[in-house]
């Protein structure tokens, strides 16, 4: 658990980068720090692993104040990924990934097993990449290796500063999805900086929105989208915030809330399964080809008909009532 208690940061030049911030990240939670450029996201993140001093207040990491911890030991228990991957060009991929386990004195066999496991996890063939150097890899591959390196010593906590920010949109989306899969397996406590609201909504269990060093709202993505705390938040998430929220829900969420229309064999309708996101459903429905869809469960049983009206009804319900995911 990471707990921020009245944290403030004033830089030497007098810039107040963080202003009395309070929030908690529970174990296993994936929290996105977001806000406009210069709002203090990086500063806040770097105070956790003490790359920056805390001017006022404290950060409690697993029941210990980070100020009191031994910096070097603490950092080895925190995974750290930055935008410009920070891989060491003089070391092979294996050396790069295994640098912290090596510092911790793991034996050769344990390191090798861990390397193989991590490389499989990030989708790169261990033997193919073991002896390669960072500059022989593409940007996306380098960033994957950066993630593997941060995970190497199995730290309970990960700090990630716009890890996919420098990648082109297609690769970024791919890595986001891969990383969500990885998180399902490793279940870390993650603090993740982003400036992209779509990324935040898609990936975060919770979103912390900063502005000028102050916390604007800290809540579930659906709450941020449906119940922005103030004008700044609603402006930041954008006019299309309801549309954005549709990627948060799947067909199954809708089926749980509203009942589907009954389905007749005679109806012509494209099938969708229950895991499909509502965003895709809407897109399909707006597409000329089909004004209704038929929902199928995993066994292929047709459960009923889905129309735009039903989606609208569901969203109205969600926006008005307070959902708790």
């Amino acid at each position, binding site marked *: 658990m990471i707990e921020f208690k009245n944290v403030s940061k004033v830089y030497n030049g007098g810039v107040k980068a963080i202003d009395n911030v309070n929030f908690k990240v529970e174990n296993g939670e994936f929290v996105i720090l977001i806000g406009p450029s210069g709002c203090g996201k990086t500063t806040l993140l770097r105070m956790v692993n003490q790359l920056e001093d805390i001017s006022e207040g404290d950060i409690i990491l697993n029941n210990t104040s980070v100020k009191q911890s031994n910096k070097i030991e603490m950092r080895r228990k925190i995974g750290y990924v*930055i935008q410009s991957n920070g891989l060491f060009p003089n070391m092979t991929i294996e050396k790069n990934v295994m640098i912290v386990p090596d*510092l911790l004195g793991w034996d050769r066999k344990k390191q090798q097993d861990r390397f193989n496991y991590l490389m499989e996890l990030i989708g790169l063939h261990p033997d193919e990449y073991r002896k390669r150097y960072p500059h022989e890899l593409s940007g996306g591959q380098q960033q994957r290796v950066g993630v593997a390196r941060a995970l190497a010593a199995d730290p309970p906590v990960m700090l990630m500063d716009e890890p996919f920010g420098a990648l082109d949109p297609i690769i970024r989306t791919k890595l986001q999805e891969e990383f969500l899969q990885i998180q399902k397996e490793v279940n870390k406590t993650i603090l993740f900086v982003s400036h992209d609201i779509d990324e935040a909504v898609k990936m975060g269990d919770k979103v912390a929105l900063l502005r000028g060093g102050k916390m604007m709202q800290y809540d579930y993505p659906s709450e941020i989208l449906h119940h922005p705390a103030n004008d700044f938040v609603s402006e930041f998430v954008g006019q299309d915030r309801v549309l954005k929220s549709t990627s948060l829900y799947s067909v199954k969420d809708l089926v749980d809330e509203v009942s589907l229309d009954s389905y007749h064999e005679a109806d012509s309708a494209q099938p969708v399964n229950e895991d499909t996101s509502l965003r895709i459903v809407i897109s399909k429905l707006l597409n000329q080809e089909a004004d209704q869809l038929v929902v199928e469960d995993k066994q292929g049983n047709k459960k009923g008909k889905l129309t735009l009206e039903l989606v609208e009804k569901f969203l109205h319900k969600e926006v008005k009532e307070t959902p708790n995911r």
Partner: protein
Amino acid sequence: MMNKRISQIVKIAFWIIVIAFFAWTFANDLFRPIVEEFRTFTNLLIQHITIVLISGLLAIFLSIPLGIFVTREKFRKSEFWIVNIANLGQTIPSLAVLALAMGFLGIGIKAAIVALFIYSLLPILQNTIAGIQSVDENMKDAARGMGLTPAQILWQIELPNAASSIIAGIRTAIVINIGTAALAYLIGGGGLGAWIFTGIRLFDNSFLISGAVPVTLLAILIDYLFRLMQKLLVPKGLRLAEEAQKS
């Protein structure tokens, strides 16, 4: 196609000149002193190399630690001054440095070694600082964030990444040293300069050539060896990084 042809012609012309030069020296028996006074020649050569080696090694052992020292966070302020002094020092002509050393320390090999030592400090120091400074801040930040100690960052990140630049500095220093050591004769330092200056004084071409050609070959050989070492010692990953940056 045409371009390649011109380049080849220039290359061939260069080698023809080199070969013609050596043919001419042999035809006129200009290497006679080396054969006739082989003892003296080896002594001068050894003297020459000794001066270069002692001053060079001293310079390496002082300037690399100094370069590391001034690039530490705490001493960043001194860095500006050191870099400027190193720049300034390198504009001073080598003959002047020798003359100054003699003015203060008198005639002899000691003054020569001191002069060469001071003169070779500067390029090594400059390149050590530049090499360490050029290490990407983000990379060091990542290293700190992963819990590497400052010493580990120095040995595993900064020095390997600065190695190419440091070796280049040593190469520059040693090659300049070989030339300056040829002037050391003037202040009583011995070395192959003895024959060159004797040749000038006596208008004796054979002494000129027997002194100048070995010094030249020594400089070119050492330069080549250091370039080779730069290639071999620099980690493969870094060479790839350099190439990636160029393209």
